[in-house]
């Protein structure tokens, strides 16, 4: 077991009266692609600023490569940042922009331009060397910012909502390229976003943040399939959540009372506490040929055709405050107003104890 590349230990941060980070600890492995995912105000950008050295945490420590970097200024730490607005130097050519970090290290002119060209080639912009930033499109500026940050070979590359300003198509395309570039250079990337699709597509390690805390972290497949908390079940993909209480436990199985009837779970739970049962839209079955767990009847309230599937909202008859979110094949014939039986399989139910 090697030491983690980045080790954030019990970090708290306050802006005036407001506490934006509450006891955050996080470890990042070399060569990994980490995504900090969360809504605005969740503290993810503050955490990134702390890693970059632009903000010193109120409490806690940050170690990078085993060294205490908590109050080391940005210039002196082995991180570089790709800013959301790219922050290219408008008065310099693309080549000088990319070479700036090397210039600050005292690298001579010819080596500098050779390395800058190499970095630009890496991001597919070799021809832009002599251009000015304002002559480039948004996506191209993004790549220049990436090349400029990568050329000085940082231990960690920090990306602050790097795809936020791009249109959807370009965003998906840049997403694939980011991943490819990260694999090629092998640098650890830490990337902040509020887009859960981006998170699932890019992350090796996904960190879900809410209200200054880490709600859940792990490989995106695990976070999606088995979210640790209610928040992560609804933020990383959608879920229907049934509120329930554990009423009985015997033979390594428990019964949970919910508004739509008792649900049996194949695990032994302490009797008494309130729990949540989350079900992903693709696991809900609407109609007769149902799964093992009956979840009552519901009236379809909305059907949205989304190309490859239909997103269906249905209100439970047993509990009108409960709304099922289901994903049906595009060919399914379901209309608003239909009454349908709702069910799912036992092993698709995600138990939330928070």
């Amino acid at each position, binding site marked *: 077991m090697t030491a983690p590349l980045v080790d954030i230990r019990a970090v708290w941060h306050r802006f005036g009266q407001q506490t934006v980070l509450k006891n955050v600890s996080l470890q990042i492995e070399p060569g990994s692609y980490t995504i900090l995912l969360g809504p605005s105000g969740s503290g993810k950008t503050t955490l990134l600023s702390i890693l970059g050295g632009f903000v010193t945490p109120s409490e806690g420590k940050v170690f990078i490569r085993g060294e205490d970097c908590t109050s080391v*200024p940005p210039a002196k730490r082995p991180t570089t*940042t790709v800013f959301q607005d790219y922050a290219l130097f408008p008065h310099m050519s693309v080549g000088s922009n990319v070479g700036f970090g090397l210039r600050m290290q005292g690298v001579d002119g010819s080596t500098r331009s050779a390395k800058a060209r190499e970095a630009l080639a890496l991001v597919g912009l070799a021809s832009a060397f002599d251009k000015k930033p304002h002559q480039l499109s948004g996506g191209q500026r993004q790549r220049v910012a990436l090349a400029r940050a990568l050329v000085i070979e940082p231990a960690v590359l920090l990306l602050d909502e790097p795809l936020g300003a791009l249109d959807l198509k370009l965003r998906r395309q840049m997403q694939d390229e980011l991943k490819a570039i990260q694999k090629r250079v092998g640098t650890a990337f830490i990337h902040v976003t509020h887009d859960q699709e981006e998170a699932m597509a890019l992350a090796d390690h996904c960190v879900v943040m809410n209200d200054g805390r880490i709600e859940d972290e792990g490989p995106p497949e695990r976070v999606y399939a088995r979210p640790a908390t209610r928040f992560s079940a609804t933020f990383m993909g959608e879920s229907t959540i049934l509120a329930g209480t554990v009423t009985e436990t015997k033979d390594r199985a428990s019964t949970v009372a919910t508004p739509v009837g008792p649900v049996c779970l194949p695990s032994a739970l302490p009797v008494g506490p309130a729990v949540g049962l989350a079900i992903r839209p693709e696991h809900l079955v609407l109609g007769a040929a149902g799964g093992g767990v009956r979840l009552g009847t519901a009236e379809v309230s909305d059907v949205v055709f989304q190309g490859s599937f239909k997103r269906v909202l249905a209100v439970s008859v047993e509990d009108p405050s409960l709304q099922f979110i289901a994903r049906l094949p595009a060919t399914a014939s379901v209309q608003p107003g239909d009454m349908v039986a709702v069910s799912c399989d036992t092993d698709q139910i995600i138990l939330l104890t928070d």
Partner: protein
Amino acid sequence: MRRIVRIASWLYALAVYGFIFLPVVVLVLFSLQATSFPIPPFTGPSLRWYDAVLSDTRLTSALVNSLLVASISSLAAVTLGFLSAWGFARFVLPGSGLLRGLITLPLTVSYLIIGMGLLVLFNWAGVPKSLLAAGIGHVVINLPLCFAIIYSQMGDHQINIERAARDLGAPEWKVLLLITVPVMAPAIFAGFFLSMTFSWDEFVISFLLTRFDTTLPVEIWNLLRSGLNPKTNAVGSLVFAVSIVLVVLFELTLLRRRRA
């Protein structure tokens, strides 16, 4: 009816511009007078009075003094103005609003009051009346101007640019020199040229704070005391020409900024 309104508005515009520019036109026209009095009829054109101005060593040395005072004081004003604007824009200072107000306050105080204040102060501090004293006076009046121009152009979008430079390993002085100053160049030049313009034809402070070596406006005033002659027109036209050049430079740098 509509025609009458249109003609009337044209006449009005003509009157306004005539009112503004006629004195200048008359000044320049009679600087080209061939005879000894700048009154009609016009007898020129002739360059004899310009020749007279340029061979008058008192006037030419005053012209050089004016240029020196204007350029050095403007350089000082723009440097100090830039640094204070940067400080206010980038750092959280206690009482920032009040301090910013104080720095721009001299814009509202008359030059006469500033000149008198400096005269008293310099007297007390033992600084003799000189071009240096007048130059300091010009820094006092132009610093708020430079500060206001540069501060207004120093937006938040440059903060990340400076951060990026720091992030890539630039020490603070290199961030300022290689990033902030070039990015702010249009505002800095605009401040510089406007200061030059104001310093170039500033009279009251120079009059109060200089003695033997003096600036061109003060020398022109000396000349006027012995009555009007085409030489005063010629030197006035020269002053006007330099002012025009400075204002055009100011406009150009500011316009280029807007287009970018």
